[in-house]
């Protein structure tokens, strides 16, 4: 877990005091809305469709019981008893009163949390693999580098007014669970031939109205040069990124317009100047100091197979199903990582009640070394659980309605808040997700379909990551009616691809049937249960799906 140092504590406290004064001045009329808007956005406060929304930063999705209980308390005291976990591994409260925000920020500061840089044209919350520190396939703990980047980018004077927002993601596994190739900077932590740490650096990925897969600009950046190289990238972007048109202001557009070779050349040129000064080479002792924050918990020496778990599974089919789907191999024998699905059938994706947050906090304390993660897929993760403890963890999750065994299934849907909450949206997302989940809710049917990621956005800004959904759904407004455009074949992992639009959109009434037609077509044409939807799509192309969807239309 990250730790606040004196500097963190001081600047967060100062910011809370500053914003308390700004809110008071706004409420007294001393500040107009035009004057106040940029100030509130700097503190994560948006004015949404129904009320103020407060977005809280959760560094690389890292929580513990204390933080989670505090979020639950805020949900209960200041909101309507629940919060919404986002694709940036953050949390949003949808019903906040402006006058309460300073008190909430004060409560967050007490548990080393804040809402700084959750909005605005700055470097946003750095995200990372939600299985960091636990994944059997990682070469190092990516949180160490995410934390170094967090410290460097927090209130960075040079990069607080970029042309547009800037997002960084880090993974340390070949299988990319952090969607690094759809970020402004994606970092893949690797080991070199001598075992030394370095990074493959990707630049210029992003979704939104112009989806693009990032380009690799460095195959192996030495560990110590992480910040100097990122500084060079940000400098080039800050200097040449467009400020005349916010729709063309992200670094992906700069890369697209100037060409990757030219931008890579500029980055390297800038980097050479930064490097020559040698001011941003990471000292070994500093890397080690940060790494100590993420020292593994005291794992016990356990057999790889748990007799307790196997016996319990034999007696409880529900547990067996949960383990098969929501439990992931851990790097340490006798342990596992547990995905807590926030996608109960019919529930809004990513929402958790205060009681559910408290239940997870209690489980984490008792059975998971006090660690909880938020995944970009809007689920929670207990990274370190003993296999022996899985039956009791499962039972506790069941009590809190958090044991839905659907991780990675068709009902594990990412959905943005959409027109139910968001002032930018054109169409609703959550009700579509709810209806799809209900249509496919039967466990046997989900098992038969296997891995399939549906992602839904309520507008072109693509907060629901629809471009990288195996099935992506984009809500649009067509003459006052909600319509949904479907894309197929997107993927946010190491084989990153942007989904292709399959044809004309569907009405709200039609869209769930359309998804079912796509799924049925896949089941009919796949080469067996081992061929996933994405693999089948890549083999078949969109033609059979388009034909099935639009056959009746002639």
């Amino acid at each position, binding site marked *: 877990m990250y730790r606040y140092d004196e500097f963190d504590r001081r600047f967060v406290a100062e910011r809370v005091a500053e914003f308390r004064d700004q809110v008071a001045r*706004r*409420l*007294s*009329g001393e500040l*107009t*809305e035009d004057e106040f808007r940029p100030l509130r956005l700097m503190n994560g406060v948006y*004015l*949404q*469709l*129904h*009320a*103020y929304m407060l977005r809280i930063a959760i560094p690389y999705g890292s929580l513990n019981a204390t933080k989670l209980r505090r979020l639950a308390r805020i949900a209960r005291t200041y909101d309507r*008893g*629940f919060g919404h976990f986002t694709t940036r591994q953050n949390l949003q409260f949808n019903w*906040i*009163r*402006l*006058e309460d925000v300073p008190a909430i920020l004060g409560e967050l500061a007490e548990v080393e949390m804040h809402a700084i840089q959750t909005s605005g044209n700055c470097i946003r919350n750095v995200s990372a693999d939600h299985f960091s520190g636990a994944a059997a396939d990682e070469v190092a703990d990516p949180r160490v580098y995410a934390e170094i980047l967090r410290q460097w980018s927090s209130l960075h004077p040079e990069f607080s007014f970029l042309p547009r927002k800037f997002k960084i993601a880090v993974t340390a596994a070949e299988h990319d669970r952090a969607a690094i190739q759809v970020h402004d900077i994606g970092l893949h932590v690797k080991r070199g031939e001598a075992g030394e740490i370095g990074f493959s650096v990707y630049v210029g990925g992003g979704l939104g109205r112009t989806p693009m897969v990032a380009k690799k600009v460095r195959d192996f950046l030495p560990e110590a040069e992480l910040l100097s190289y990122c500084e060079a990238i940000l400098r080039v972007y800050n200097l040449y990124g467009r400020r005349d048109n916010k729709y063309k202001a992200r670094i992906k557009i700069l890369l697209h317009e100037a060409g990757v070779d030219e931008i890579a050349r500029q980055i390297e040129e800038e980097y050479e100047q930064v490097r020559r000064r040698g001011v941003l080479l990471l000292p070994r002792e500093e890397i080690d100091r940060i790494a100590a924050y993420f020292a593994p918990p005291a794992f016990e020496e356990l057999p790889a197979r748990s007799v307790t778990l196997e016996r319990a599974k034999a007696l409880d089919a529900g547990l067996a199903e949960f383990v098969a789907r929501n439990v992931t191999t851990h790097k340490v024998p006798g342990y596992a990582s547990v995905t807590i699905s926030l996608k*109960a059938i*019919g*529930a*809004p994706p990513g*929402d958790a*009640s205060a*009681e*559910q947050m408290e*239940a997870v906090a209690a489980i984490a304390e008792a059975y998971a070394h006090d660690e909880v993660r938020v995944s970009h897929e809007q689920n929670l993760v207990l990274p370190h659980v003993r296999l022996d403890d899985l039956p009791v963890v499962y039972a506790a999750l069941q*009590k*809190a*309605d958090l044991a839905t065994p659907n991780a990675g299934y068709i009902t594990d849907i990412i959905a943005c808040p959409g*027109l*139910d*909450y968001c*002032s*930018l*949206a*054109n169409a*609703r997302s*959550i*009700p579509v997700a*709810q209806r799809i989940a209900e249509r496919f809710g039967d466990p046997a049917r989900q098992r038969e379909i296997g891995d399939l990621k549906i992602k839904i956005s309520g*507008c072109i800004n693509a907060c629901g990551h629809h471009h990288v959904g195996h099935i992506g759904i984009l809500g649009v*407004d067509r003459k*006052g009616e*909600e319509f949904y455009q479907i894309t197929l074949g997107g993927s946010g992992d190491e084989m990153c691809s942007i989904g292709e639009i399959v044809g004309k959109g569907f009405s709200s009434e039609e869209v769930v049937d359309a998804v079912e037609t796509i799924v049925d077509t896949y089941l009919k044409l796949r080469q067996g249960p081992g061929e996933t939807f994405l693999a089948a799509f890549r083999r078949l192309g969109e033609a059979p799906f388009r034909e099935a969807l639009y056959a009746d239309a002639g």
Partner: protein
Amino acid sequence: MKKDAKGAGPQVVTANALESGLVVFRAPDGRWVRAIDEAQLVRGREEAAVLLDAATADAARNIVVEPYLVDVREEDGRIMPVLLREAIRAAGGPTIVEVSAYLHAAAI
């Protein structure tokens, strides 16, 4: 995304309350109310401009934030926004169905 009202039919003025952020509508007596049925209904460009001016003055007095006109229609004596976005705002909350998970969790 917010769209400017076309103004061909009846209209009301909406905004968000400064302190709570909640959706409000301007009533004939100048109060800002939560229920759209209590909103002042105007017809025609001139009436709409007068209402919007009054609302803008309220925004300048820091009562509400970002007032704007909304196209509505009257149905069975009720005021109904024409656009879905505004209908969702007027309803005071999301269209999401009650979720059993919440109800269950609250009982833990």
